[in-house]
C-alpha cells in the first residue's frame, strides 16, 4: 500500500518562505495533479519530496519511513521517483545505458545483462527502441523526455512525480506520455503531476492540489477545486467575479494580476 504523508513542511530561502506549512496525504495509487501560478512553490515542494532539498521544518513519511532526512538516492530506493522540469538525460551515455543506471542502482548485486531485455521493452513501449545505442544527446527534446520516463519505469518506484511532463511536447508524444501515465497508474503506481496544461491535468487527475505563494490552498476532486473561491482568487485575483475557465489551454498567467 502506497502511503505518503507530508506533515507541516516548510522551506525557507533567505527571507522567502517558498513552501509554507504544507500538509497532505496520499493513500494508494492516486493520480494527483499539482497546479498553481508561477512561483507558487510547486517545484520546491517536489524537490523537498525527492530529497534534492531538505525542509526547514516539518516531516515527510513514505510507506511508514521518514524520508525528509534521507539522501536522494535512499528516497529513490524507498520508492519515490521523479522527473525534472528541464529534461536531464545523461547526454553522453547511450539510451540503453541511461535505462540501465536506475535498474542497477536498485539491484546492488544484479548484472547489467539481466536488465537489457526489460530496457528494450521499456524503450519499445515509449517508441524509442530504435535509438537504444544512440547517445542521449542525439535525441530530440521530446524523446529525451520519454527517456526520462523510461528511466522511471526501470527504477520502478511506487510514487512518481512528474514535473511539467507536457510542456513543449509534440501532440504525438503527448499521447504517449498520457498513455504512460494511465497505464502505469493502472499497475498501482501513485502519481503527482505538475502541469500548466489545465485541460490535460483536469481530465487526467482524480485529485488536485493547488498551491499559491507557498501555501496549499486547495485539495480535492477537480470539480470541487474548480469552484473553490480561494483557487479562483489565486488565479484571477480577488476583484474578479468571473468563474474560472479551466478549459483554457494556458492559464491566464500572462495577465499582470497574477503578479499582484
Amino acid at each position, binding site marked *: 500500500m502506497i502511503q505518503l504523508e507530508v506533515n507541516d513542511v516548510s522551506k*525557507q*530561502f533567505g527571507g522567502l518562505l517558498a513552501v509554507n506549512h504544507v500538509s497532505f496525504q496520499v493513500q494508494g495509487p492516486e493520480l494527483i495533479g499539482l497546479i498553481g501560478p508561477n512561483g507558487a512553490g510547486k517545484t520546491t515542494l517536489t524537490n523537498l519530496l525527492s530529497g534534492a532539498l531538505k525542509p526547514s*521544518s516539518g516531516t515527510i513519511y513514505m510507506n511508514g519511513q521518514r524520508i525528509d532526512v534521507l539522501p536522494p538516492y535512499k528516497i529513490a530506493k524507498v520508492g519515490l521517483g521523479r522527473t525534472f522540469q528541464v529534461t536531464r538525460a545523461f547526454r553522453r551515455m547511450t539510451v540503453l545505458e541511461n535505462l540501465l543506471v536506475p535498474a542497477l542502482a536498485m539491484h546492488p548485486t544484479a548484472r547489467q545483462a539481466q536488465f537489457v531485455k526489460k530496457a528494450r521493452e521499456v524503450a519499445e513501449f515509449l517508441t524509442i527502441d530504435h535509438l537504444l545505442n544512440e547517445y542521449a544527446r542525439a535525441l530530440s527534446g521530446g524523446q529525451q523526455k520519454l527517456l526520462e520516463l523510461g528511466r522511471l519505469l526501470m527504477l520502478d518506484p511506487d510514487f512518481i512525480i512528474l514535473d511539467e511532463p507536457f510542456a513543449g511536447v509534440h501532440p504525438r508524444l503527448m499521447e504517449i506520455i498520457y498513455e504512460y501515465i494511465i497505464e502505469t497508474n493502472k499497475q498501482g503506481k501513485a502519481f503527482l503531476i505538475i502541469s500548466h496544461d489545465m485541460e490535460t491535468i483536469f481530465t487526467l487527475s482524480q485529485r488536485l492540489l493547488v498551491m499559491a505563494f507557498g501555501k496549499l490552498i486547495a485539495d480535492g476532486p477537480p470539480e470541487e477545486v474548480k469552484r473553490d473561491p480561494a483557487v479562483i482568487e489565486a488565479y484571477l485575483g480577488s476583484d474578479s467575479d468571473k468563474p474560472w475557465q479551466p478549459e483554457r489551454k494556458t492559464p491566464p498567467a500572462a495577465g499582470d494580476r497574477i503578479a499582484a
Partner: protein
Amino acid sequence: MEFPTIFWYTVLWLIVWGAVGALVTPRVYARKDKFTYQTGMLGAFVGAALGPIGLILLWRLTPAVSAKWLGASGIVVLLWLALAFAKAAPNNLCVTNGSFIATQIANGLVIGAIYGLMALGLTLIFSILGIVSFAHGEFYMLGGMVTYYATQIWFPNLNPLLGVLIAALFTFALGAIFELLFLRPMITGQIERPGEYAILVTFGLAFFLQYTTLSLVGASPKKVPRFFDYPRWKLPAETGGLLKVTPGNLTFFDAISIPSARFTALIIALVLLFVLLYFLYRTWTGKALRAVSQDRQAAAVTGINPKRMNTLAFALGGMLAGISGAALVQVFSWVPWVGIPASSRSFVIIVLGGMGSLPGAFIGGLILGVVEALGAGCVPDPHRAAAYLPAYGMIILVLVLLLKPTGLFGREL
C-alpha cells in the same frame, strides 16, 4: 624542537573544538527547528574561540547567525593563536618588536593591494564569462616581462610608466586574441562541454605561455631597477618623526619602513583601481559590463552585445594582471615561472573574497598580503618561513572552501 609544542597543542585544541562545533551545531539548530544556514560555520568559529563552554552556550541560546557573532569569534580565535605564538616563541621579533610587525603588516598591505588588483581582473573575467582563467598568472608574468624588455632592452631610457603602458596594451591584446580564438566558440555553441573546456583550455594557455616565454627569454632572472627615486624629504622638517623619505625608502612614524619601489607599485595599483571603478560605474561600457554580469539575456535585450563584452572582460582582466606584474617587476626578480604562484594567489583571493565580488577581491588581496607578510616574518625558522610562503594562501583557500565556499562577499544562493 621545544618551540612548537604549546603552539601546536593550541592549534589542535582549536581544530578539535572547531570541528565539533561545525558538525554538531547544525543538528542542534535543526532540532530546535531553527534556520540552519551557515550555523556550521558559526559552530566552528565559536567552538574554536571559546571551546566547550562557548559551544554549550551557543547550543542553549541558538542565536541567529550574524556577521557580528562570526566576526567576534573569529577575532578571538586569532587572539588565541597570537597568544599561543607569543608564549611559544617569546624571543621572536614578531613578539618583541612592534615596529617590525607594523612594517610587515604595512608591506603586506602594499603587496596585497597589488594582489587585489590582479584578483580583480580574475573576478571580472569570472563575473562576465563565468569561468576561472587558469592562465591569469601568466598574464601577470608577461606584464612584468614586457616591462623589462621595454624599459631595459628595446628602449633603454624609456619612462617606466610608458613601459607599464606597453605591458598593459600587450596583455590586453593577448587577452582579446585568446578570447576570440578560444573562448568565443564556447558561447556560440561550438564546444560541447564548455565548463570542462574552459578549465582545460586556460590551463593549456598557461602552459603554452610559460614555455613560449622560457624559449624566447631564457630562465635567468630578470631585474628591473626601481621606477622612481624619491627626493630626500622629512616631515616635520628637522626630525622626520612622521615621514622620512630617502631615494630607496619611506619611513613612517620612525617605525614603518616601506621600500620606494613597493610604494610606487602601490600608487600605480591605487590609481588603476580608481580608474577601473570610474570605468565600471560611470561609463556606458562599464555599466554594460556590469549588466551582462548580472543578467546576460536581459542585457542582450537592451542592446548590449554580450559577445563583445566577453572579449572586453577577458582582455581587461588579463590587462589588470599584466599591470600588476608590470608594477611588481621592480620589486621581485622575474623568471617565466613567477606566474604560477601569482595564479594560485589570485585563486585564493577570489575564493576568499567570494567569486564574482569586486570589493571582495580587493579586500581578499589585502588579507592575503598581510597573512603572507606575517607568515614570512614570524615563522621562526627563516628557511622554512620562505619555503612555506606559497602554502599560507593555499591553507586559506582550503579553509574557505570547506567552511564558506561562497567567500566573504559572495553572492548567496
